[in-house]
């Protein structure tokens, strides 16, 4: 890649006001560095990945409202987590967290456990119990 070819496309990097560093060659064929504000093929890949996550969140929301799963699964998706990551954050076995996805089990959870989940998601117990309050 030549220095003049380092892409300067619009991307999500702009929101944080920084440009990433790329290695490229100058007119004399020597390596140098140049900042890049973004590259379209990359932005498309990232947008696709974000879209997949958004679909998962939407899906989880529907299932919570239909009483098919508990809000814990919804918040897990919101925080881009999966089961092993969430279990590691709350410090419980995976099978226990999975069990807490059942609406029936979730309703009976004590405040100590609810608080654990609420802390991980950085919300109140009220919000944890009712996803529409978020």
């Amino acid at each position: 890649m030549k220095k003049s070819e380092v892409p300067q496309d619009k991307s999500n990097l702009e929101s944080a006001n920084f440009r990433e560093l790329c290695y490229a060659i100058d007119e004399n064929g020597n390596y140098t560095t140049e900042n890049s504000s973004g590259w379209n093929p990359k932005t498309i890949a990232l947008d696709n990945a974000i879209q997949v996550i958004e679909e998962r969140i939407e899906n989880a929301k529907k299932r919570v409202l239909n009483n098919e799963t508990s809000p814990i699964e919804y918040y897990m998706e919101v925080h881009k987590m999966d089961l092993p990551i969430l279990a590691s954050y709350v410090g419980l076995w995976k099978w226990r967290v999975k069990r807490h996805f059942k609406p029936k089990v979730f309703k009976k959870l004590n405040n100590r456990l609810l608080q654990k989940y609420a802390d991980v998601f950085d919300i109140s117990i009220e919000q944890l119990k009712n996803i529409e309050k978020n």
Partner: protein
Amino acid sequence: MKINFAHHQSAHCENGVVSNLLKHKGYQVSEPMVFGIGSGLFFVYIPFLKVNYAPVISFRPMPGIIFKRFANRVGIKIKRFKFQNEKKAEKALELELKRNNPVGLQVGVYNLTYFPDEYRFHFNAHNLVVYGKEKDTYLISDPVMETTTTLTKKELNRVRFAKGAMSPKGHMYYPIDFPKELKLEKAIVKGIKTVCRDMLAPVPYVGVRGMRTIAKLIRKWPKKKGVKIANHYLGQLVRMQEEIGTGGGGFRFIYGAFLQEASVILNNTKLKELSIEITEIGDLWRDFAVDASRIYKNRSVELDAYNKVADKLMELSYKEEEFYKKLKKSI
């Protein structure tokens, strides 16, 4: 307190932190040099592991290895700490800052508030330097950022104790022992040899043979998994290749910069030629990303498009095989 620490932006966090910490101690070592000596160029496909609901394909070895190899090969000793709780971790960090010693930290990316939202995912092997503290705010030099930044005490504790795979557990490190003069020549040769060995490894999951395995899989994905999942997998591959940290083209350009520097130090013109060759290979990787992005942009494409990008990846694997064979002979 604020330590007089010079921030230099780098493409990749691990090399960047090492390079910046060494520059602080008065040793001028560039990011590509750290990357090359640490044998950072790699390709691996881990079939039984999934991240973000896609198979794991990586263009670099396990986090931490580049640094370890670099330190061993040039003879630097690193002191490392891990902690059981946040209080102890905080205390140790403050002690070092009081001693005027900037330290490297391993952190999780998800709660790094200065990153754009879209880039915040659960990856726990990011590296940054803390070089001071003002009231309850830590001064941070994150090598992938253009300028220095800050994190509050609460935020820093959160990222130091991120959970999940490879959780950092407060991991803190800094170099303690240096040789009188960094002897790079032998270290460079060792670094190059390891890359050639790994990339030419006779297993179908690593190096050029790993690329061929992926090329074959790309042909199968749309039929076996459906267009949607195939596109998601392809997108993840491009992200691993181009996302912040690789310096473009799956680290091939950083490696080109390393070979150019190495050719001067070893007085070996062959390496300069090979630097040009790997740059051309890097350009082909960029073309591959462009073609792949076309597929997942227009969703409904004919199956032939997958075969075309697979062909490109195959071609890349043969070009790279040639390259590593020549590289092995040149030193």
